[in-house]
């Protein structure tokens, strides 16, 4: 019996493929996309103003009207996107020299050590790292202690800049690794050719290296940007400036699911736009 089944699958490769993919594809389409779909449906459903219960299939655009009529939502969306963009730019600015050193200058031994050093923080828990930053940033924290001789004190846990700092720290490895891989892919002879044709270090970087790193930078930025835009724990724990995620969380906690769902369209649309641009820059060939 077993032999006959395996024999049949051997004769029908497409059926084999379907049987193998049925599980994972089913999981993605039903459990993953399905739940996302239901979540987004909530945005178009009304809420009983008396009981506060969501009324499925009672279509309305109230939730969107509520968001559009309140400028706070706009401020929060702009703040989130702005910080995410800033985190991405900062991570790229740090990743370029670090990855360049790793890929082009460091000895094989140092390169291995640096790769471990870059990936090591990924082994630690996300929450542990954020709490570590809290102890650094709080008014009487490590940073405050270090700068107290100069009459300064720690930034405390309210500054919006804290979110920028901590998010950059968290997502930096995701930028360094693709940029490092991108640099490794540039043949040495291209750099020699540029020098041979009269290009000094800076010109070679600007004209030969950087343009070829754009796909790698776009790939890294997908991580830094999307992870930043979706984060709500960092802004909650190290600052008092809310992100989109905090508003969604707060609204669902209060039971206003339609508003939460409607607001979650913002990061989704931003990310779709971002991915389209990244694809044009060749990011997906660099992942």
């Amino acid at each position, binding site marked *: 019996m077993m032999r006959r089944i395996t024999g049949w699958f051997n004769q029908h490769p497409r059926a084999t493929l379907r049987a193998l993919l049925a599980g994972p594809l089913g999981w993605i389409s039903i459990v993953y996309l399905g739940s996302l779909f239901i979540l987004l449906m909530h945005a178009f459903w009304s809420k009983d103003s008396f009981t506060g219960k969501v009324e499925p299939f009672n279509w309305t655009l109230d939730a969107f009207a509520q968001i559009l009529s309140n400028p706070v939502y706009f401020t929060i969306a702009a703040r989130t996107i702005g910080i995410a963009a800033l985190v991405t730019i900062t991570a790229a600015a740090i990743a370029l020299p670090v990855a360049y050193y790793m890929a082009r200058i460091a000895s094989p031994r140092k390169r291995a050590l640096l790769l471990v050093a870059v990936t090591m923080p990924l082994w630690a828990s996300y929450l542990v790292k954020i709490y570590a930053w809290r102890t650094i940033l709080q008014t009487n924290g490590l940073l405050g202690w270090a700068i107290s001789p100069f009459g300064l004190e720690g930034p405390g846990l309210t500054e919006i800049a804290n979110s920028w700092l901590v998010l950059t720290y968290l997502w930096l490895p995701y930028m360094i690794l693709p940029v490092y891989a991108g640099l490794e892919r540039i043949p040495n002879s291209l750099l020699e050719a540029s020098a041979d*044709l*009269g290009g000094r270090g800076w010109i070679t970087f600007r004209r030969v290296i950087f343009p070829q790193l754009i796909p790698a930078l776009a790939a890294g930025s997908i991580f830094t940007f999307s992870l930043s835009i979706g984060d709500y724990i960092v802004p909650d724990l190290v600052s008092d400036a809310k992100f989109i995620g905090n508003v969604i969380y707060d609204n669902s906690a209060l039971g206003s699911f339609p508003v939460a769902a409607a607001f979650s369209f913002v990061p989704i649309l931003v990310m779709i736009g971002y991915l389209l641009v990244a694809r044009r820059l060749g990011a997906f060939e660099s992942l």
Partner: protein
Amino acid sequence: MERTASTALAIRLDGLTKKFGSGTDAAAVAGIDLEIRDGEFFSLLGPSGSGKTTTLRMIAGFERPTAGRIYLHGDDVTDLPPFDRDVNTVFQDYALFPHMSVAENVGYGLEVRKVGASERATRVKEALRMVRLEGYDARRPAQLSGGQRQRVALARALVNRPRVLLLDEPLGALDLKLREEMQIELKAIQGEVGITFIYVTHDQQEALTMSDRLAVFNRGRIEQIGTPAEVYEHPKTSFVAGFVGSSNLVAGEAARALFGTPGRFAIRPEKIRLGEPTDKVGADEGSVLGRIKTVVYLGADTRYIISLDIGGELTVTQQNLKESSMEAHSAEGRAVRLTWRRVHVLTLAEDPQVAPA
């Protein structure tokens, strides 16, 4: 183009040495002296690992010599970085910038050296015309064939009008037909621009075809420098005799039996005549009897390996004037007389000993 300075030196290498790794490793280039004249097509010929590419890379400035000096038109450039040397390189893998168009690639050197846009456009157009790639300006390197990429690499180097052009096995990646076409074209272009070409190759045929002079490299040293005819007709060492063309190398007792005196000798397979055992031998000729052991049919020629009656083997090639392959193969086992003119027996020097590092 007039070459008034034909006796002037383009390049002078003085005791040039390069060692990679720790001090006990053998030197990649072991103290070479070389003078290349202005306007020459000069080849550095040798097997892989013989130091020819490392020498070229030191002239270009990509490698720093461990010892020795490099002079470019009389100026010491040993300590200058590549971008301050008036030489350009054509790379083995072409090294075209993949994100730039053909015109941008060719114009890169001019742009970096701040040549104005209109002059740049004219010179790029002119360089592309010279390598017969007019109309390809807007293409990307990925859209070109290997031979076309090669031409772009050449145009990109020539457009800067360097005093010396360095070519690192530029035709190595092309197939045979295209390589032969490009050999002729490169030589023609060199005649047109009058720039000194230094050409690295491991292909002795290529070096013989193209060069005005060549240097044969072996184990980090130069074994012989000369014109193609000099090096081919009068190889000085057994390495050169064996590497440039093929040779029967004869030494010791065999040499005494064949040529009457002991020593190191070489004779080219095409200089030996294959005949009947009863053939007459002239006064200025040498001769030996043997039997055909193996026949290798090569199309234009046939190669015979003869076991000599006095012991040992000699290889003989004969042009296929009338033989067909079947006739040639039917000769196996036949008794023959080998005859050669004494002037074609080359006396070789002992191979130079590699000095301990």
